[in-house]
């Protein structure tokens, strides 16, 4: 029994070493940014970290579910994912060729599931500051942020209603793909800015968002796309799953 576990453990290590995890990650250099949050006038420092080049795909997540059956759609605890969890997967997901090769980002995953996936990969979810900081990078070849606004606009107005594949929207200057325009993405501390309705200080929800609104002016018209992301996070609970929300993982640099 213990031998079997040992072999399994070593096997996992071996597979882990074989996985081109680092290749599929890019380093985001240290820096700072001015986040779009009420009352924040100071720039937030962000340490250098590694970030997945692509959002996690259905194929990636299928491998995770196979290795961790407790995260299977029919076995997951209701506490950790709502009824929409992986609801876009077919019944026979364990033996489905198109899912195995799907380059579409996985959606309908809860924060708990995304967090578990990253842990399994010996990674973690990026913090909100890390995510926002990395997402500020312009597309390769672009010279101003209008390019990012346009990508967001196209996405919100759903010119392409079909779910796009990872690596199809744009690559930014750090070599990270599709930070905007593909799916919403979970971050580790998604509920740190706006509290959810478990909290008593629900006025902060309104205040945070409305004062943020007041800070918008003609000089930063493009900020409303960040505004939308913050309000999106504010509507979530960790067990929620939605059809347009996936994730990618990050890793600290030792």
């Amino acid at each position, binding site marked *: 029994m213990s031998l079997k576990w040992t072999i399994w453990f070593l096997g996992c290590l071996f597979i882990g070493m074989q996985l081109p995890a680092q290749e599929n990650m890019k380093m985001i250099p240290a820096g700072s940014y001015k986040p779009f949050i009420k009352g924040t006038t100071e720039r937030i420092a962000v340490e250098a970290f590694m970030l997945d080049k692509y959002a996690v795909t259905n194929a990636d997540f299928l491998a995770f579910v196979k290795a961790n059956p407790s995260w299977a759609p029919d076995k997951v605890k209701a506490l950790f994912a709502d009824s929409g969890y992986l609801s876009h997967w077919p019944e026979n997901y364990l033996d489905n060729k198109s899912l195995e090769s799907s380059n579409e980002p996985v959606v309908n995953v809860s924060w708990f599931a995304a967090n578990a996936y990253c842990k399994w990969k010996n990674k973690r979810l990026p913090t909100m500051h890390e995510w926002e900081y990395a997402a500020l990078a312009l597309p390769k070849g672009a010279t101003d942020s209008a390019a990012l606004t346009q990508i967001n606009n196209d996405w919100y*107005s759903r010119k392409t209603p079909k779910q796009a594949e990872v690596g199809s929207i744009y690559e930014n200057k750090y070599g990270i793909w599709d930070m905007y325009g593909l799916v919403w993405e979970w971050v580790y501390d998604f509920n740190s800015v706006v509290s959810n309705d478990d909290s008593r200080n629900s006025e902060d929800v309104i205040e945070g968002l409305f004062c943020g609104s007041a800070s918008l002016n003609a000089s930063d018209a493009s900020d409303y796309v960040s505004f939308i992301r913050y309000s*999106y996070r504010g509507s979530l609970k960790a067990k929620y799953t939605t059809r347009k929300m996936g994730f990618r993982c990050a890793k600290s640099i030792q």
Partner: protein
Amino acid sequence: MKSKTYLAVATLFFALILNSCTTSTERRIIDPSEDVKGQVRAVLTDAPEVPPRITNKSNTKVIVELEIIEKQMRLSDGVDYTFWTFGGKVPGKFIRVRHGDLVEFHLHNHPDNMLPHNIDLHAVTGPGGGAEASLIAPGKSAQFSFRALNPGLYVYHCATAPVGMHIANGMYGLILVEPLEGFTPVDHEFYVMQGEFYTSGGYGDPGHQDFDMQKAFDERPDYVVMNGAVGASSGENAMTVQVGETVRLFMGNGGPNLVSSFHAIGEIFDKVYVEGGSLINHDVQTTLIPAGGAAIIEFTCDVPGTLHLVDHSIFRAFNKGALAQIKVIGDENHNVYTGKEKEEVYLPEGAAIQRISQDKEEETGPIVELSLKERMEAGERLYKSNCMACHMDHGRGITGTFPPLVNSDFLQARTDKGIGIILHGLRGEITVNGTKYNNIMPAVSMSDDKVASILTYIHNEFDNGGGLINAADVKAWREK
């Protein structure tokens, strides 16, 4: 005698008490602890339809189910937009409840939607008008209840950040809290709501248009529309009534920015519930409807024709789409309006030939004849100040309206060289160089000397055979 006085005083007192009772019951305060009897599902309608009148006489629990749907629809011919809607259309579903009802509100955010949403109903007494209780991610539902404490017509809208963007994309509608006594019956009730759209392209630019945040900041919409799209309630989509029928309009303004100068071209509002509240104004031409506000408007359609419901900030109506129509069908009523009785040419001078008076001091003096050069100089000056307004520079005239003076066969054929025309005027049909003219030239009261100069100028400058016309020639014709 004395007892009669007592009686009169007592009657007066009684009348006063009765009167004060009547006024105090006009405005009923709802006690939220009052019982609620029975339960109904609210009937929801798309504009311009309005749900049926409420017949329940007691406080009822009303269940409202409203689904948020993001979808591409037509904004104008050949123009698409991704609207965010309460119920699949812009404006959102009309909700009708009764004063004192308990409303159990269920808001559903369709799983295919991109964004979180919520709802702020101005009819709600409570934080955010329900907004904070209803923020929901795609694929979620929220429920909250409220008591309809105040009667009136109220706007509801999405209040999720960025609020302006959610409203600008079409997230607004109306909820009517019908007063206990109900409204007087009318033949038709209609739902119309104004709102503006800020598109990446200009008005009419074809294809799918994105939302333009900069234009929204600047309050510079390309579209201002009634019921969610250009022509949504006009032309073949117009509302229709019969002559003599009464209409109640539930008119809202979603904004997000503009205040509407709401007006019906061809109708006077008999009654306006100002701002959708309890204050009633009568005989109104144009009523102001603020962004996030509403009005209840009543009128009778007395004559046939098309009523244009417009924002009388009028460029919005004719250049940005803010127009809806009510077609009134039936027989003419000439006691109210005759239609066009006749049409005729309007001549500011009147039908008879008028005289344009000039100073007369020269006429009394002796005739002083001038050289051709002097006549030409004076003639040019006089032509410009007296003739050019109609006959144009260089005597070109305006084809069909004012005859030309250049090489004019009509002028050259006249033995008076045109003197009679200036002295006496001319009216009726003439043909000049092959074109017919039927107009009036007034007689010009001008000295013989001046007439001579003008005509000398016209005959020489405009290629009519030249020659010198003397004041004596004019005098001779005048005396004929």
